């Protein structure tokens, strides 16, 4: 990053909602269907067709607003944004302009090694998506309107971010929240969570904002970071050379790692917004807001705090376990069955998540359910099995679907706690390694581990390690 200038970043995020139907008609929003198969007079913009608002879209917008600390407007309206483009059937997009549904929210981001920072959210509004324009050959393009009229929330931040890392932290948190809320599938590649970044720079100490460029087509967190960093360098070089930044839209090319201007499309935009006379004003009562609030899940930030305070987990563990809702749910179910949060955390983070990652399985499909895992942890706690054997039991459950107790029984994994039996093995091991035993006796304490290991090996891991230790100590002092 260039140190001569202060960087100012504001983000506009389009969140595609997971409603079954479109925002203004009953067509399905399912992805990947035959072109124009999910259309009707309304979303085709046929003469005479009229929009009717999907109630669930409003519920989702309120959810998003509450989760990002916004004020929910008691009165909001839809407006038409007028412009011509083949993917926009009516020649206008129904959006919100004056009086959006949510305003004045914020998210707190935390970067490693620095203070918590509050990023303002200017507004969240509802709007319809455009269709898809596919550039087929040299002379023409084709239009698929399946996506037209799909519900979107546009989340507009304040220009509060000063580095690409802050921008990414904000985006990741916003992404986490909308996925947690269940209002967006969060798929960046399919365009369910799209980000435009407004980037400008200014000499340190200058009050006025510099001229900004709008970066579009950012479909992964990595590209967003790259694009912002590229843009900051580009603008800094311009200013260093005595040049000026032009206000423009730039398209990021992820393959080349550069952005290019979309000049030409900049032709005098005059969207002629006005209230859509086909739609009524939206009134949201306190009751409605309360009812939506009661359906809000505990959000990741709150979980992060709670896991540290209530369960005494380290910040790292709390972060990993709260990042995704299904993981948090797995963990919380486990803790409810086995009240040893740190042990539960260790198992989920290493064994469960590790195995899922290896096998490429989603946690909701994990063959070892929280109840099954709790079964293992109980047997460790009551010394039926050792921690080491427990991993073998975990693998057994994974491949057979049987319970911990069944696996322990069938495979004879029960820990040996019979003093006589263990002593016999200890004697065998001492007899087999007389030299080392003498050295141990002589004070070479390091060899203690060797003997415990040998005994455990001879017992196929089933000997209780504590008892092995005690017996060996007894032999030494004998």
């Amino acid at each position, binding site marked *: 990053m260039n140190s001569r200038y202060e960087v100012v970043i504001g983000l506009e995020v389009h969140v595609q909602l997971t409603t079954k139907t479109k925002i203004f008609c*009953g067509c399905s929003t399912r992805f990947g269907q035959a072109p124009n198969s999910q*259309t009707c007079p309304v979303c085709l913009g046929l003469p005479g067709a009229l929009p*009717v608002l999907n109630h669930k879209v409003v519920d989702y917008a309120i959810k998003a607003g509450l989760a990002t600390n916004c004020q929910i407007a008691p009165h909001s309206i839809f407006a038409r944004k007028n412009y011509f483009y083949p993917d926009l059937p009516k020649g206008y997009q129904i959006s919100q302009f004056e009086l959006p549904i949510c305003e004045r929210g914020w998210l707190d981001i935390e970067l490693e090694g620095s203070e918590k920072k509050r990023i303002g959210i200017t507004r969240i509004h509802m709007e319809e998506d455009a269709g898809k324009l596919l550039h087929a050959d040299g002379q*023409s393009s*084709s239009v698929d309107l399946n996506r037209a009229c799909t519900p979107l929330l546009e989340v507009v931040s304040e220009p509060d971010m000063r580095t690409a890392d802050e921008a990414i932290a904000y985006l990741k948190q916003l992404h986490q929240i909308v996925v947690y809320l269940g209002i967006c599938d969060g798929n960046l590649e399919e365009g369910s969570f799209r980000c435009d970044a407004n980037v400008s720079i200014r000499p340190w100490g200058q009050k006025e904002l510099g001229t900004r460029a709008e970066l579009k087509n950012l479909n992964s967190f990595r590209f967003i970071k790259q694009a912002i960093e590229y843009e900051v360098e580009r603008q800094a070089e311009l200013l260093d050379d005595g040049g000026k930044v032009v206000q423009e839209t730039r398209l990021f090319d992820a393959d080349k790692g550069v952005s290019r201007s979309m000049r030409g499309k900049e032709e*005098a935009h005059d969207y002629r917004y006005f209230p859509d006379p086909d739609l009524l004003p939206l009134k949201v009562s306190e009751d409605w807001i309360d009812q939506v609030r009661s359906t809000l899940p505990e959000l990741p930030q709150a979980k992060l705090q709670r896991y540290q305070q209530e369960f005494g987990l380290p910040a790292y563990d709390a972060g990993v376990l709260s990042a995704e809702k299904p993981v948090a749910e797995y963990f919380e179910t486990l803790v409810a069955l086995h009240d040893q949060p740190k042990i539960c955390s260790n198992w989920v983070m290493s064994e469960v998540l590790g195995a899922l990652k290896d096998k490429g399985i989603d946690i909701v499909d994990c063959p070892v359910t929280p109840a099954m895992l709790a079964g293992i942890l109980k047997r460790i706690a009551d010394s039926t099995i050792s921690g080491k054997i427990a991993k073998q039991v975990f693998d057994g459950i994974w491949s057979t679907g049987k319970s911990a107790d069944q696996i322990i029984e069938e495979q004879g994994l029960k820990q040996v706690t019979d003093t006589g039996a263990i002593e016999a093995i200890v004697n065998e091991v001492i007899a087999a390694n007389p030299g080392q035993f003498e050295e141990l006796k002589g004070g070479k304490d390091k060899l203690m581990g060797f003997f415990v290991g040998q005994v455990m090996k001879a017992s196929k891991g089933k000997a209780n390690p504590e008892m092995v230790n005690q017996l060996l100590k007894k032999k030494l002092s004998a």
Partner: protein
Amino acid sequence: MKINQKDVEHVARLARLNLEPQELEVMTVQMDAILGYVDKLNELDTEGIEPTAHAVPMANAFREDEIRPSIGIELALGNAPMVAGESCFQVPKVIE
């Protein structure tokens, strides 16, 4: 003059209407007359008056999030001036 020919040209571009030079001239004269007439609204003090978007004050019309059958590709494309491939509308390429 409320409006000149250059303004009219700009508005025609916004409205995606190709107007011939002679049409532009006539349009300018007519729009100027109409805009001159509507200026009479400024005789009224509307400070503090709420605008009326709908004559019948109403709010909140919704539909439930329930799928209704689409009309099908055949009807959707039935009036298309040009069809691309199996089931897309075809349009000329954007030329700047």
